[in-house]
C-alpha cells in the first residue's frame, strides 16, 4: 500500500511538473474533434455518431498516455528500483492503472465539455455519461497498463502498444457505445440497455484487473 502510494504520488508529481501527457492528450482530443467535424461534415452530432466520435477520440487520446506511462520507468531505471525494493510488483501495476485512470478523468473533464459545446444540442445526457466514461477509463487504464508494460521492453514499443491495444479495446468500445448512444440521442437521453452495457464494462474491468494482477509479476522479473 505504501509502495503504491509512493509510486502514484511520484507519477502525479512528475506529471504536474513536466506536463508531459495531459496537455498533449487534451490538444489531441480538440484537434480530433475538428477533424471529425470536417470528416463527417456535421456541425452537430447525436446518437451513435456522437457516441462514436467521443469514444474514439478518448480511446486514441488514451493511447498517447499509455505509450508514455512507462517511459520514465524504463529510461530512468524505475523498473530496477521496483525489482530491487522489497515491494510487490503489483503495487507498480496498481499505481500505473490509477495514474492512467486519473489522466483519463482529467482529459475527459476537458474534452467532454468541449465536445458538448462543439457538437451537442443538449447536455442532458452528460451526467449518466459520466458513469459510462468512468467505467471506460478503468478498463482503458487496466488494459493500458498491462499492454504498456509488455510493449515498453520491446524494440518497437510505439508500434506494439497500439497494435495490441486496439483489438483488446473492441469490447469496451462496443459496450460504451451501446450505453452512450441512447444517452446522446436526439430526443433527449434514454436508458435503453444501459444496465446491460454497464454490466459488460464492469465485467471487462474486473476480468482484466484480475488478469493484470495475476500476470504482472512475470513482466517484472528479469
Amino acid at each position, binding site marked *: 500500500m505504501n509502495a503504491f502510494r509512493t509510486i502514484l504520488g511520484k507519477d502525479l508529481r512528475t506529471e504536474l511538473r513536466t506536463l508531459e501527457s495531459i496537455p498533449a492528450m487534451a490538444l489531441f482530443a480538440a484537434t480530433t474533434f475538428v477533424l471529425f467535424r470536417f470528416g463527417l461534415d456535421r456541425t452537430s452530432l447525436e446518437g451513435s455518431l456522437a457516441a462514436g466520435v467521443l469514444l474514439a477520440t478518448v480511446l486514441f487520446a488514451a493511447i498517447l498516455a499509455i505509450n508514455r506511462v512507462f517511459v520514465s520507468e524504463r529510461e530512468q531505471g524505475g523498473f530496477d528500483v521496483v525489482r530491487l525494493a522489497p515491494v510487490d510488483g503489483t503495487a507498480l501495476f496498481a499505481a500505473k492503472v490509477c495514474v492512467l485512470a486519473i489522466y483519463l478523468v482529467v482529459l475527459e473533464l476537458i474534452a467532454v465539455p468541449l465536445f458538448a459545446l462543439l457538437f451537442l444540442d443538449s447536455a442532458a445526457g452528460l451526467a449518466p455519461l459520466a458513469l459510462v466514461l468512468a467505467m471506460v477509463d478503468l478498463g482503458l487504464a487496466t488494459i493500458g497498463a498491462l499492454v504498456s508494460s509488455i510493449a515498453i521492453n520491446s524494440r518497437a514499443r510505439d508500434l506494439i502498444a497500439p497494435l*495490441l491495444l486496439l*483489438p483488446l479495446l473492441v*469490447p469496451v468500445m462496443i*459496450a460504451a457505445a451501446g450505453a452512450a448512444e441512447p444517452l446522446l440521442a436526439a430526443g433527449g437521453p434514454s436508458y435503453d440497455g444501459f444496465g*446491460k452495457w454497464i454490466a459488460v464494462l464492469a465485467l*471487462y474491468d474486473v476480468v482484466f484487473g484480475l488478469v493484470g494482477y495475476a*500476470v504482472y509479476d512475470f513482466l517484472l522479473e528479469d
Partner: protein
Amino acid sequence: MNFRSPRILPWLTVVTLTAGFALVFFFAPNDADQGFIQKIFYLHVPLAICALVGFMVAAVQAIIHLRGGDSKWDVRSYVSIHISIILGVAVLITGAIWARASWGKWFVWDEPTLVSFLIVFLLYCTYYPLRYAIEDRERQARYASVFAVTAGAFVPLNFIAVRLAETLVHPRVFATSDSGLPPKMWITFLVCLAGMGLLWETLVRFELAAKSSRARLGRLRRALEGDDVGVAGSRIAPLAHGATETS
C-alpha cells in the same frame, strides 16, 4: 521429443475427415432453408471451434509456462496459437463464402459470431509482431505467455460483448427449428468436429516435431562448425527464425 503414436494420429485424422466429408455429401440431408450451401457449415464451424479451443489451450499452456518456467510449454503455446491462426484464416474464408452465398455479401457486420471471430483473429495476429519485437529469448517467452493468457481471457469476453451488441436476425443453423439440428446433421457435424480436432492435434505435433528437429539440426551444425555450441542449450527454439540462424 517423443510423440505418442506418431503414425497412427495422421491416419486417424485422414480417416475421420474423409468419413466426415463422406457423411456431409451422402448422409446429411440438405438444409430446408439454405439448400446445398449449408454444407459448408460442416467445414466452417468445426474449423472455428478448433481455432478457438486452440487459443484457449494456448492460454492454459502459457499459464503452465509462467508457473513452472519450463520453456517447452512456451513452444507448445506458440505452436497452438500458430496452428489456430492458420485455421482462423480458413474460418474467415469459409465464413465469407457462406455469407456471400446466404446473404449476398462477403462480410456481414450484424453476424455476431463472424465479427467476434474477426476481432479475436486480429488480436492473435499481433502475437507475431510482439514476439519478434523482443530480442531476449527468455523475456520473449514470458511476455508471449502473458499475452496468451490475456488474450485467452479476452476471447469469451469479446464473444459476450459482440453477441449482446447484435440483434439475432440472421438464420442460424443451430436454431433453424425448435429442436435444433436434426440427428443426421448432428452426427455428421460431430464426426467433422472430431476430424478437425484431430487435424489440429496432428498439425501441432508435426509443427513441434519440425521445430525440435530443426533446433537439433542447428545444434549439430554449430557443433560441426565449432562456434558457440553451448549457447543453444537443449531447448527448442521458440521462434522459427531462431533455429535457422546458422543456415
